[in-house]
């Protein structure tokens, strides 16, 4: 009976459910300038907060004189650590089990650190008053290099002096945070020592920043009469913010309402809890008026959430034929002045242990050392699921280096070592269970689409022409096959501050057959209001256009851990499907009652329940919805609602195969991306248009990181990249057109088989662009050169290789 008939096709199409490129419901307000972002919020009597920040990277704060600032008309308050201390709010817990100063408590540990919070009638007065606060500093020696920091006598965190045990085990030195080990060290060393071939390489994955177009901000409003605190803010995890605020302020959680309004991009920047949020709350309590704080771009780049900064050394071993036998990875991680990394509690280096990548590597070992330095705290997942970007970069570079060592084609080397389709679910040497994949199919499809052999031939000819002096450009072919790990995650091993990383969905069907669904996540541009309605449309047979999706208000939405790490579709998307199924189960009973048959004698058919074998006897979901409100059905409560809290049984493992073809001008160092082919497998595809948009965006952020974007410091700890003049964000002029493709390998454990896609292109894109640069110079002996590959660095590489002689 379930054959697709044209009539049935049409009914399905009307739902705009799974798999269709439904246009976005968000766009009407955004295209007309009617979005509602934090800085658009204006409450009666609202004050503005602004920070006095440290110009030094490491200094003692001798005194703070607020007299002159307070004397300025329009200034309402100036808060320092001393004012926050009686409330116990001068320090706050970080997501990584460390603590962080809200306002400088005796010393500062990075340039741009928050020292005092000025509250004034408007943003101009606040900025004037910031200039009037007199802070006396006594400079201290600055440590910006983690290796130096581990040797230095200088104690960065005096508050931790003498503590040999940190949140993640023993500390080896006063500037050391943790050592995290995974895998079999002895076994791996043995394999590597006895291998036919071993390649060793060190690489630095530089510090960068997610830099969404909207900076971070908040509006806090304490209603002293009712004892209710409302906080609007750029929060990727509003529920977690509510819990944290309650724990640190002592305000009962039911008296706190956290609202994430429209968010102008997140990319990990808006996961953490920042001093600005805490100070706005305190200022509102102190002044009795709403207080807005919105950081400017310079503050954003200097203080709220760097990403990466991993020094990685690898050893990879193989047989003569190229079969990889072992992988050893040692990382020194620069965490800055406080360990504020946003990772699940048990994973201080995130999911770095996915660094065996897409390959069947029998033995592996990983160790990560976290180190304090005089740089900003952060360590967020910049369009990435908890350090997966670093892991994939590491393995995809190690593969290239091994190919060089063995004088092999890097595509062939990958193909020999891919985990085979029949090996899934695959148990990795570093502890993960990959859910599903078909890497060979994806890889072969891409190789054929780009005519890989033809490209290699062209490249060889180019090298010859270059040697003959006929051209000054080289050609690079960048390859990457990545495996992501997203959808954190199973409560048994994933929590943040003790909060399990499940997610949730609550659905109410209205009498006339429309619905509202609320989730614990929050969109920052991913289009949840569009896609989650599609999941539901297919599950419950009501048109997506009749379903409102609401997120971000903790007073109404069910509890969830928010949106980052590509977790919305794998976790909240699953909760949505499961809640939908509960609705459907009740609808089935109602339908059976209305049709006067047994429950099992009706079956779901697109948008209705039909009597088995008699499709002309049916009740549509719309009719069922109405019936649920107006019929007394024996044994059934009225109404049609459901809620699901979904604890995923496993992570999901999206993957993809990318190729980048690049021409590099040896004399200017300018790389030109001629072609980029991206095949992604994110399992079941909910909305192809949105998936494609995510891929374009992620690849562009990858291009930025690989080819120029960095947060750089000088030796005094001054941030050298504090404005968009120095911090590279590509414009339309620098970005190529991308070709996208896909295969579909559903996740076996996700209710609709979806895996998540938002971060894949970034995770896979960075090594692909970087490998293209490396590959262009491979014929001239280049093995490894660190990102970002900006024009100057590429020119230097060419120069070092003697190509300007």
């Amino acid at each position, binding site marked *: 009976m379930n054959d697709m008939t044209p009539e049935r096709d049409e009914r399905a199409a009307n739902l705009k459910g799974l798999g269709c490129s439904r246009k976005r419901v968000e766009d009407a307000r955004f*295209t007309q300038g009617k979005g509602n972002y934090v800085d658009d919020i204006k409450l009666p009597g609202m004050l503005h907060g602004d920070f006095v920040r440290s110009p030094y990277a490491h200094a003692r704060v001798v005194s703070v004189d607020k007299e002159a600032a307070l004397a300025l008309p329009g200034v309402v308050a100036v808060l320092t650590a001393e004012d926050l201390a009686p409330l116990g709010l001068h320090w706050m817990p970080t997501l990584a089990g460390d603590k962080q100063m809200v306002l400088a408590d005796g010393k500062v540990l990075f340039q741009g650190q928050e020292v005092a919070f000025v509250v004034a009638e408007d943003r*101009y007065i606040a900025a004037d008053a910031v200039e009037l606060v007199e802070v006396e500093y006594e400079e201290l020696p600055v440590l910006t290099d983690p290796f130096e920091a581990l040797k230095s006598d200088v104690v960065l965190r005096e508050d931790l002096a003498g503590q040999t045990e940190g949140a993640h085990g023993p500390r080896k030195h006063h500037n050391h945070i943790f050592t995290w080990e995974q895998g079999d060290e002895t076994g791996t060393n043995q394999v590597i020592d006895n291998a036919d071939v071993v390649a060793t390489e060190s690489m630095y994955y530089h510090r960068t920043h997610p830099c969404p177009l909207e900076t971070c901000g908040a509006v806090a409003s304490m209603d002293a009469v009712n004892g209710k605190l409302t906080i609007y803010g750029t929060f990727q995890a509003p529920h977690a913010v509510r819990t944290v605020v309650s724990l640190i302020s002592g305000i009962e959680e039911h008296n706190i309402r956290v609202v994430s309004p429209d968010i102008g991009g997140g990319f990990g920047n808006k996961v953490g809890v920042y001093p600005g949020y805490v100070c706005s709350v305190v200022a509102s309590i102190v002044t009795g008026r709403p207080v807005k704080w919105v950081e400017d771009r310079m503050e954003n780049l200097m203080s709220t959430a760097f990403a990466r900064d991993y020094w990685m050394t690898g050893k990879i071993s193989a047989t003569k034929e190229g079969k990889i036998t072992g992988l050893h990875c040692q990382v020194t991680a620069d965490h800055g002045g406080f360990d504020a990394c946003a990772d699940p509690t048990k994973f201080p280096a995130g999911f770095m242990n996915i660094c065996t990548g897409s390959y069947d590597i029998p033995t592996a070992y990983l160790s990560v050392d976290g180190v304090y330095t005089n740089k900003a705290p952060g360590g967020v997942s910049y369009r990435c699921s908890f350090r997966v970007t670093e892991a994939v970069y590491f393995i995809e570079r190690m593969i290239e280096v091994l190919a060089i060592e063995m004088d092999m084609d890097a595509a062939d080397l990958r193909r020999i070592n891919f985990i085979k389709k029949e090996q899934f679910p695959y148990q990795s040497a570093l502890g993960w269970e990959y859910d599903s994949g078909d890497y060979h199919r994806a890889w072969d499809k891409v190789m054929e689409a780009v005519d890989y052999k033809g490209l290699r031939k062209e490249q060889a000819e180019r090298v010859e022409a270059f040697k003959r002096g006929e051209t000054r450009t080289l050609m690079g072919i960048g390859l990457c096959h990545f495996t992501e790990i997203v959808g954190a995650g199973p409560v048994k091993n994933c929590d943040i501050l003790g909060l399990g990383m499940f997610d949730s969905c609550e659905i109410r069907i209205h009498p006339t057959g429309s619905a509202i669904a609320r989730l614990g996540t929050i969109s920052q541009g991913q289009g949840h209001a569009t896609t989650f309605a599609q999941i539901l449309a297919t599950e419950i047979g009501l048109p997506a256009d009749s379903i409102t999706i609401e997120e971000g208000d903790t007073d109404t939405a069910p509890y969830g851990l928010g949106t980052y790490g590509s977790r919305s579709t794998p976790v909240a998307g699953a909760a949505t499907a499961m809640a939908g199924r509960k609705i459907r189960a009740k609808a089935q009973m109602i339908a059976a009652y209305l049709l006067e048959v047994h429950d099992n004698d009706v079956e779901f058919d697109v948008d209705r329940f039909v009597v088995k074998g008699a499709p002309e006897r049916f009740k549509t979901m719309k009719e069922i919805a109405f019936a649920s409100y107006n019929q007394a059905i024996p044994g059934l409560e009225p109404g049609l609602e459901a809620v699901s809290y979904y604890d995923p049984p496993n992570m999901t493992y999206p993957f993809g195969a990318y190729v980048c073809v690049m021409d590099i001008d040896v004399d200017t160092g300018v790389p030109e991306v001629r072609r980029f082919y991206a095949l992604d497998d994110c399992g079941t595809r909910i909305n192809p248009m949105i998936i494609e948009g995510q891929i374009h965006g992620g690849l562009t952020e990858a291009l930025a990181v690989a080819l120029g974007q960095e947060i750089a410091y000088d030796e005094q700890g001054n941030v050298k990249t504090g404005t968009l003049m120095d911090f590279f*964000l590509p414009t339309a002029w620098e970005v190529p057109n991308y070709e996208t493709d896909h295969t579909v390998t559903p996740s076996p454990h996700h209710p609709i088989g979806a895996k998540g896609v938002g971060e894949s292109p970034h995770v896979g894109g960075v090594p692909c662009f970087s490998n293209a640069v490396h590959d262009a110079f491979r014929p001239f002996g280049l093995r490894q050169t660190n990102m970002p590959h900006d024009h100057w660095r590429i020119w230097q590489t060419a120069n070092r290789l003697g190509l300007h002689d």
Partner: protein
Amino acid sequence: MTDKMHVKLKVNGENREFLAEPRELLIYALREHLNITGPHVGCDTSHCGACTVTLNGKSVKSCTMFVAQANGAEITTIEGLGNPAALHVLQENFREHHGLQCGFCTPGMITRAAKLLEENPNPTEAEVRFGIAGNICRCTGYQNIVKSILAAADEMNAAKEAAQ
């Protein structure tokens, strides 16, 4: 604090008057005195274009101008390009071709694109890319923005031809 001045602007066809400090940036004057919150602040150093408006017939980054400099000017923001009953062709095409994600760059981007298509009704892809290079988008990778603008140009040209 400096003395406030009397500012007169014509914004989206309406005459508006208010008191502001001369040093206030135009973007804040629009957003905070006039509640025109379509244009956004992404950097306040003239790099991102989120604050783009049309001022006396030119695309201007409104974070780069003091309200005193804008006094007397005629300004169009995203709010003045179309309305729910009659969207601007660009607004329709951005939706149609998924030319936006978080929407933060969108008001500036569409305002700039509208001016670009006035300056050059038949742009090539390269001209579109160059023409919007002052507007940064962190979400879309530009591919669909370019597509949206080219599609809008086609549609506007077809409409013009049909009218002739």
